[in-house]
């Protein structure tokens, strides 16, 4: 037998020792449904529509997100706010807001395009559907819940309290 082949035998035993040692290490497995790994800070998951602290929706229905979307997954239909029925502090609000998550590529361009930071990509990654229709996320599913039921939109406000068509980025009240 040549010398390199004799060294191969030595390497085999080294390998066996390595695997034997690894048997006593802690398993790296994460037992998924019970244990969940925290997503990375810049993880981009499912979208959410945000609200201001006073309960008004940040979305002003400008549809810039739909324009920015490279896969045409977003559909926005705006409507006028009135002081009797006020959804957002701006001139308009989104009466329909739909994201087709089967088309969405989670690029985050919608969040970049949004002038009021209304739409953001959350860290939600458990997006399994039993039905294709469940992949259409409507405004009801996307909108963050209100902290207090009194703040539910539409709100009735004093006339003239929201004069701007595009609200300032900070909390408008």
């Amino acid at each position: 037998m040549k010398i390199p082949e004799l060294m191969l035998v030595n390497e085999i035993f080294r390998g066996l020792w390595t695997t034997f040692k690894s048997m006593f290490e802690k398993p790296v497995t994460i037992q998924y449904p019970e244990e969940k790994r925290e997503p990375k800070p810049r993880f981009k998951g499912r979208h959410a529509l945000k609200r201001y602290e006073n309960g008004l929706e940040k979305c002003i229905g400008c549809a810039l997100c739909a324009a920015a979307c490279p896969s045409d997954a977003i559909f926005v239909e705006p409507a006028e706010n009135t002081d009797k029925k006020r959804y957002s502090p701006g001139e308009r609000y989104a009466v329909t807001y739909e994201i087709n998550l089967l088309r969405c590529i989670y690029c985050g361009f919608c969040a970049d395009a949004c002038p009021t930071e209304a739409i953001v990509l959350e860290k939600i990654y458990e997006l399994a559907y039993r039905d294709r229709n469940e992949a259409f996320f409507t405004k009801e599913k996307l909108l963050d819940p209100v902290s207090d039921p009194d703040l539910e939109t539409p709100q009735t406000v004093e006339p003239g309290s929201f004069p701007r068509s595009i609200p300032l980025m900070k909390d408008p009240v």
Partner: protein
Amino acid sequence: MDWILVLEWVIKSIVLILFGLVGFAYTTYYERRALARIQTRIGPNRAGPFGLLQPVADGIKLIFNEELIPAKADRFLFLLAPVLTVLPSLIIWAVVPWGTSITLFGRDIPLYLADINVGVLYVMAVASIAVYGIVIAGWSSNSKYPLLGSLRSTAQIISYELSLGLAFVGPILLSDSMSMIQIVEKQQETYWFFILQPLGFVIFLLAVLAEVNRAPFDMPEAEQELVGGYHTEYSGMKFALFFMAEYIKMIAVSAIAATLFLGGYSGPFVDTLPWLGPIYLLLKIIILLFGMIWVRGTLPRFRYDRLMGFGWKIMLPAALINVFITAVVIVLLK
């Protein structure tokens, strides 16, 4: 021959076959758990407590798999091949002694099915029949990868059969018998034969790995080159039979290795408590199975020409030298 004796044989055969089938199921579980530990994973732990029902789930899945027969396959041989592969691995068990004898219902029941005086030869002969199943499977599939896999398998098994046969010769010479029982009894009197036959033991283990197509000698089913090797075209229960044959043979060769080299059913207190025999043998089988799994979890597959070179240029001469030295020493000591 009274009918009770026949009944006893039938019961023992059924118990052995059931042991083979349950053993097969739980060897897959054992292997998956052990491999997972080697790779610092956990392994199947969902089906039932500690994943113990995983083999059952796998079995049910295989039963409901679609049975596919290729259009241009030779139907008869295609169906025959898995049966031919699995049968030898079951009938090997006939000569493996599990202990001396126990008394049940006022009868003295020996803990083996048959003590034939050519037990070792029987094992050799039966173990090699399985290669027919593999060759037929490869040929009757009428497909290139199975054919290549089965040709490799034939070449490999024939090459390693020689070293395996010569490794058997050591214990036969030492115990002056081919009966498995007498080989074990001789080991009880003297030492376990792996002490007297270290080279023979190593050759036996290596040859056996090649014989049952286990890594690193799993050439016939080299996934990366041959898809699934000889069982590429098989699915469902027919595939399960090949799978079963491989695992039952793993257990069987572990049992034979334990019997020939590790004292078989012998161990402390086995003379007074004969029911300890099966427990000792089972323990030895489990340890040897762990060895096979450990090697699989460590070593990559050999290159094919290296495998043949190793078999013919190293294993065979080493086995011959081992037999020669053993014979000379025995003659000199007489």
